[in-house]
């Protein structure tokens, strides 16, 4: 299993991955509280970027509404916790199926009725917007006034209920990111991965090579939605408050896709690198502005815009395909 996963990966790439992993594991020992929250945010975006990449980077289906799955996951787990005292891990049993169903619903509508390309993207936005408006008016989840999780003091870490110090959250999201990375690698090397790439490259040619494109696109959407919902559960328990205007907002969906675009769509390391570059630099900028005593609301968004512009103009495939060639880590062309 492991042998298959690392088959064809250059030794130097493995070494680098190992160093990065060790660095991330020991990071909380030396990082300040502030740096730790930045790292949590980076890993959070690396994780969701990976999930979004399955749909767009692998299967070629552009979703601009991934906030939907984050929000559904977050609300499902949070409301079960608030109303019934059911912890987040059990809450996942609700969050994942709910998000997967939503993904299946969008996928079915689009793929059955041949809604493709930008129209598919618009459909994903529309459903996320429906959810935002719907949750705004749904009493059980406290509507637009927001759902709050009871916050306790950090006397001890309760991993089962996800209550505790940021360090615990850090390791949870680190583990999730590592698992997502491994899962994506395994998927890319499997039968379904090959079929996804074929669909991404040329759907009609894929069909004439015997691929049931409807089925495999559905699989991509459902896996991506299910994975993303975990990020929502994490979000709810980390931030302890949920507002439909925030979690379901289209700006959230855009935030999710920036990392993979900057890092490299369709690559395994792109979402990770993109999250580090974007979130890392944006937080540095925010900190620097704060230190200089400058108050510039929206500076982060402008910064994201500039980054996106630069990458699209200079490296349209993203930073990672270019960088990996530069440092001699390029894998066989996928």
């Amino acid at each position, binding site marked *: 299993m492991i042998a298959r996963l690392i088959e064809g990966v250059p030794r130097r790439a493995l070494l680098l991955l190992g160093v990065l992993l060790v660095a991330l594991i020991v990071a909380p020992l030396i990082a300040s509280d502030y740096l730790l929250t930045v790292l949590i945010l980076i890993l959070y975006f690396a994780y969701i970027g990976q999930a979004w990449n399955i749909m767009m980077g692998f299967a070629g289906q552009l979703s601009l509404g991934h906030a939907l799955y984050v929000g559904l996951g977050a609300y499902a787990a949070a409301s079960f916790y608030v109303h019934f005292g059911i912890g987040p891990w059990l809450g996942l049993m609700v969050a994942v199926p709910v998000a997967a169903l939503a993904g299946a619903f969008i996928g079915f509508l689009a793929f059955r009725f041949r809604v493709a390309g930008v129209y598919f993207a618009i459909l994903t936005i529309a459903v996320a917007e429906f959810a935002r408006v719907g949750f705004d008016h749904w009493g059980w989840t406290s509507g637009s006034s927001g759902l709050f999780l009871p916050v306790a003091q950090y006397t001890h870490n309760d991993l089962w209920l996800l209550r505790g110090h940021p360090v615990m959250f850090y390791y949870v999201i680190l583990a999730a990111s590592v698992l997502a990375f491994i899962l994506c690698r395994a998927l890319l090397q499997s039968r379904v991965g090959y*079929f996804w*790439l074929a669909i991404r490259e040329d759907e*009609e*040619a894929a*069909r004439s090579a*015997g691929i049931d494109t409807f089925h495999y696109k559905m699989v991509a959407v459902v896996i991506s939605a299910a994975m993303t919902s975990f990020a929502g559960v994490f979000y709810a328990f980390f931030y302890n408050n949920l507002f439909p205007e925030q979690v379901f907002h289209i700006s959230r969906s855009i935030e999710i896709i920036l990392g993979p675009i900057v890092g490299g769509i369709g690559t395994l390391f792109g979402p990770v690198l993109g999250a580090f570059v974007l979130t890392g630099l944006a937080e540095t900028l925010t900190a620097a502005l704060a230190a200089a005593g400058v108050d510039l609301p929206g500076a982060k968004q402008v910064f994201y815009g500039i980054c996106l512009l630069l990458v699209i103009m200079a490296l349209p495939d993203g930073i990672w395909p270019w960088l990996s060639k530069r440092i001699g880590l390029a894998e066989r062309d*996928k």
Partner: protein
Amino acid sequence: MSALLTVDAVSKRFRGLVAVDRLNFEVPAGGIYAVIGPNGAGKTTLFNMIAGVFAPDSGAISFAGERIDGLPPDRICRRGIGRTFQIVRPFPALSVEDNVIVGALLHRRHVVDARAHAHEVLRRLDLYDKRAQRASSLTLPDRKRLEVARALATDPKLLLLDEVMAGLRPTETDRIVAILKELNRETGLTILLIEHVMRAVMALASRILVLHHGAAIAQGTPGAVVRDPAVIHSYLGAEDVS
């Protein structure tokens, strides 16, 4: 020989224009069958109906004794009909090898097995040495052979070739002709091809069907067809009589 593919009174209209008009023919198992005819004769329409891109308006298409008209392209491929496109469409960002692995995975669960099969097919089509290249970096003749390789990797009983020789130099044409002949002889693969390059048709086909305005104007062995006055008049031109 029994018929592997039977086209029975098949018609297709596009907004009143009759593309294929009550066409009948049978492709015997193990044969190489060519469809020729001038542009707009309905050849590609016929192919697209067999391959499932669209369904005939009337008539029936049977493959290995079962009706296949109206089935979608992926189901038809799974029944055992592989196809190439007139304008080649390999998966551009994938390597040559991965292109063929996609085809090979149709009837294989594991990538390892599919890769082994893909290598076999690539060797047969003289593409093995280029397996690590991106498909988009190939020359046209190589891309044409890659299309054939990907279709072959799906283990078809019938291979549909839509003008694979078009745009190739005579030496390249002869190379593909030799490869197809060998495939037909060694594996018993049945081939149905649309072709304009008469040099290839005459070298390959055991039977020829001539389409004109969607209808068959001649059917038979290559020798007989090229001497048919109707064929000469509508397609080959007078200078080909000799």
